[in-house]
């Protein structure tokens, strides 16, 4: 089972990385870019259990460790097959 977790800064939270990358892209000539947000991607491989159970566990992991709920949102999907995306 593999879970792909995406953690992003909450929309109202300042994202200095995103701002700086946006400026970097602009100076490289990518002027069509209107906004950039930088977050984390976390790939978690888990053993056994049902997809339903895995979903519950990963949700728990996000709440407890993977995301900082004060400033970040998270989302994830789960794939039964253990193969790299």
């Amino acid at each position, binding site marked *: 089972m593999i879970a792909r977790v995406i953690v992003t800064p909450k929309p*109202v939270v300042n994202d*200095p990385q995103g701002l700086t990358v946006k400026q970097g892209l602009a100076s490289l000539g990518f002027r069509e870019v209107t906004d950039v947000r930088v977050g984390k991607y976390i790939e978690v491989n888990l053993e056994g259990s049902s997809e339903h159970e895995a979903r519950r566990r990963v949700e728990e992991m996000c709440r407890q460790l993977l995301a900082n709920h004060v400033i970040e949102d998270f989302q994830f999907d789960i794939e039964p097959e253990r193969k790299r995306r």
Partner: protein
Amino acid sequence: MSIKSVDERRLREVALTPDEYRAIVEQLKRAPNEVELGMLGVLWSEHCSYKSSRALLRRLPSTGQGVVQGPGENAGAVEIGEGWSVVFKIESHNHPSAIEPYQGAATGVGGIIRDVIAMGARPIALLDSLRFGPLPASARHVEGVVAGIGGYGNCIGIPTVGGEVYFEDCYASNPLVNAMCVGLVRTDQLMRARAEGAGNSLMLVGADTGRDGIHGASFASLELDEQSAQRRPAVQVGNPFLEKCLLEACMDLAHTDAVVAIQDLGAAGLTSAVAECAGRVEGAGARIDVGRVPRRERGMTPYDVMLSESQERMLVVVRRGREREVETIFQAWDLTSAVIGEVTGDGQLTVLDGEDQVARVPVRLLTDGVPMRRLIGLPPEPPYGLEVDALPPLADPGASLLRMLASPNLSSRRGIFRRYDHMVGDSTVVAPGGDAAMLRIKGTRLGIAVTTDCNARYCHLDPHLGAQLAVAEAARNIVATGARPLAVTDCLNFANPDRPEVYWELEEVVAGLAYACRALDLPVVSGNVSLYNDSNGTSAIYPTPVIGMVGVIDDYGKRLGAGLSAEGDFVLLIGSSHNDLGGSEYLKVEHGHVAGRPPALDLTREKAVLRLILSAAQSGYLHSAHDCAEGGMLVALAEACLLGGIGVRCPAIRPEPPLRLDAAFFGESPSRFIVSVPSRAMPEMQSLARRHNVELSLLGLAGGEVIEFEGQLKLSLAELRMAWDSMVIS
């Protein structure tokens, strides 16, 4: 006047009391509108207005030789010689760090740096004073705070050279994060954040304004409770890179005469920056247009813009007609700048949104209108008795020493300060790890020593004495490097002052600070107060008046380290020892009590000891000096050995009654140092001590790889180091 026009929920939101609201209506002669109410709410918060503490703070001495700027500006300044002044201030960021340790601590560092920049000074050093609940439960919090301080300081390129960390139960739900910044400026180029000259432009520079931390100042003035969770959007994310650019641009600005003043935006954002700046000039006002404020988000209201606490912004007062020059400087650093208004002479803060006037409040009402709160102090029962005679005698000094060195309050802080860049700037000539740190002033022989200190356990047991001990210890730390103490900045961290015993602590602490600072000729040139460090009204922190101190040495070539530096040196204890086990770390670690009276302090003796050490350092009699603090003589001696990598052999200690053996080893009598003296300088050192009327006792000889007191303890440096390096925070 009735209060009916505004509902109570709204008042609570802006943290105003019905009485305060009434005072506003009375002085405005009308009801304030929403925006005005928000602005008054933040500026009248405890955090911005000091309504509970201002009267007390006046008791602190703030003038003295060398003081160039006392309290009232963004930071204090003291002349150090050759045309240079040091600018410094300490500030708390306790509440934000409790909610989000990394960002809370990081933005605390960012904020205090901007205060120093606003004075036209280049920041050259940072210090952090931290208090947490016991390990390991607090480990994640410690990790976040330390990472945040390093994350900001390391990125911006200002060395973090000192600070302190303590672990006590009382901080478990109210950790303290205080940050101090020290800057350097030519005295004749010191700036003051005064909005002089009607018609001059107000420019907002740096980061765009977002909806960060709206009502952060009010938030800092409330106790933490379940509802704090809902205020969480108040948490700000710092951008040290942007602040680095802002810093350099402001340094460039200081070289032009286009600028009248620079003011940082901190708590209460634009409202506070504009009001403070205008408030410092008699009759000055300001007119600003929120429509011209560059924004990060769409749909922000004038209310949002006026109250936003977005980081990394500065307000610049620019001479009329010189705006282009300023803009060009900021452009060079890829920073936005916008003219948002102008200085006026009408004494009003007028806020426009394009054509529309959205607020108009007298500046004085904002800055000085809040009714001062008269609180009542009542001493609590003194429950902290200690029968020293009832304590069992010291059984095994070696085993005790190992346990003491491994205690989180005494163990080596290397695991923390090696995560801070403490070398950038090529000026750190005494690195963290000993007593004060020292930075050289390039192009001169001058050095400045910096430290923060506070034993809050002492303050808990006796606030008046504890505060004095904190000042004395800071002075000792400065003197241990060979530098002369100059001036103080203080951060008063307290619980809810509405509780009479807390207000009593505050009164006592301020009185103690004032007394010690007067006795040691140390003006208090800046500071900060953080109240309401309680959670749910139950657990209160110890009164924690953190003392930041700066000293100067005329020739940094004469500086001293804390570690033994040569085999064969005589190792001496300077000062006298008493049965001072009250409030000691020994009592806590070995007997599990926090009790008794803190050590008695005789400031006349203290002065004599400080003079002796300075004079010996000046004459070149000393190879090292280390002050005896928590853990007493033996812990100080072990530290001197571990820092220098050199052992010491001593004859057995046979204390003269009534001095107990445990007190001789681990008692915390103040006004003492461990020094090492080359044998050739011993006669001079002895006569110098006699002349200063200070007790000097020979402990032993430096050398080898063990610490030994004959027949009492013998431990290898390796064993000691293992214990000392045992703190694990991540």
